């Protein structure tokens, strides 16, 4: 699978694990470590670094009691790099944007949204550094899904003005993957401007990764960049605060 996406030009890949709460109570299993799956990770095209493989957990929530799982101190949750939540009702969307400790909020693309987006929770999510995720693989497979994808995406754009959007693929087969330039062009179809679409593929994804790292480690992340003259100025560390301000 990953042998196809290496030459296409991605530098980091996240493997997703979906937990659905409609079935019986499921235990959150330990994520499969990427080094077990691939003995050697190939090198990113154009640079000399290896491709990063991250692990990601998606929770499909349709009930507020499911969110307690996130607050519990289950050790396995900490092992995942990125946590995403998939709310099914408006109340849950509100809770996810405002109080839940996640990195991504998935927006349903496969059927008509049962609720409309409202501006206050969306703005709060943007302030907290949470990103909204759109999937593009159903759009490639099926025509009716394409319509729902585009209509949901455009309604999201109208509320959030194109900020904090990540476009990702839920590809199950390697041929459903598309290159980053193509995905940015798909963003144009969703109503993003050209620079926003490119950002949705590159900088926003990187910010999500940093947000996940922030959540895993302490509460703040500071990236130091070496300046030619004074280096001591950069060493001041921002005190721990819950709002993760990431510096790309």
């Amino acid at each position, binding site marked *: 699978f990953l042998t*196809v996406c290496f*030459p*296409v030009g991605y530098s980091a890949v996240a493997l997703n694990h979906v937990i659905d709460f409609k079935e019986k109570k499921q235990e959150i299993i330990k994520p499969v470590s990427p080094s077990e799956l691939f003995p050697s990770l190939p*090198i990113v*095209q*154009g640079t000399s670094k290896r491709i990063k493989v991250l692990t990601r957990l998606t929770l499909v929530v349709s009930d507020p009691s499911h969110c307690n799982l996130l607050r519990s101190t289950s050790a396995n949750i900490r092992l995942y790099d990125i946590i995403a939540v998939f709310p099914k009702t408006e109340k849950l969307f509100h809770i996810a944007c405002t109080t839940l400790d996640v990195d991504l909020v998935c927006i349903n693309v496969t059927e008509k949204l049962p609720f409309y987006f409202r501006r206050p929770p969306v703005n709060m999510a943007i302030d907290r550094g949470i990103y909204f995720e759109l999937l*593009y693989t159903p*759009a*490639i497979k099926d*025509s009716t899904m*394409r319509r729902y994808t585009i209509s949901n995406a455009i309604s999201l754009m109208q509320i959030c003005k194109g900020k904090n959007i990540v476009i990702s693929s839920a590809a199950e087969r*390697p*041929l*459903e*993957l*598309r*290159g980053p*330039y*193509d*995905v940015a*062009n*798909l963003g*144009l*179809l969703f109503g993003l401007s050209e620079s926003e679409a490119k950002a949705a593929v590159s900088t926003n994804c990187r910010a999500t990764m940093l947000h996940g790292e922030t959540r895993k480690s302490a509460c703040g992340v500071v990236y130091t960049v070496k300046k030619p003259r004074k280096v001591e100025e950069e060493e001041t560390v921002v005190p721990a605060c819950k709002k993760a301000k990431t510096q790309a």
Partner: protein
Amino acid sequence: MVRFKNRYVLCEVVSEDPRCRQCIEDRTLGLAVRDAIARVHGDYGLACCSISFTVKYLNAYTGTVLLRCRKDSYRLLCSALPFVRSLETRAQRYPCFLNTLHVGGTIRTCQKFLIQYNRTQLLRLLQNCTNEEERQCVQKSLLNCSLTEEQSQSGDEEEDDGTE
């Protein structure tokens, strides 16, 4: 100055099946792209994009394709390219996808980009080479390619031979 401005889109056909690349033809590819535009943008999109739409260059060994369209409608074309799912030739259907590499205003800029891109691909192949003969072959192609005016065509050809 009155001149029709075109955009040239450079793509690469990626497929799991190794036979798929050998039977790409320009007509089948053109039909597949037009079909995708019709599915995504409808009759209006198809009509807009097919004003000056042709497949200018096709390399079956590396799967490189160069498409031309009008400058006003290149966005419609580019946004419909991810929806190409398969190529159909005679009675066979091969699943594949197109990976957009570069969009340029002239064939010459696309050619320059393609030469650089092939160079990096050769370097990548060099790392994956297992056979000693292949390694020498690839290294020879790398040393031979250059960007002088009359040799730019042959430089392209040599790299294509090295990647087969």
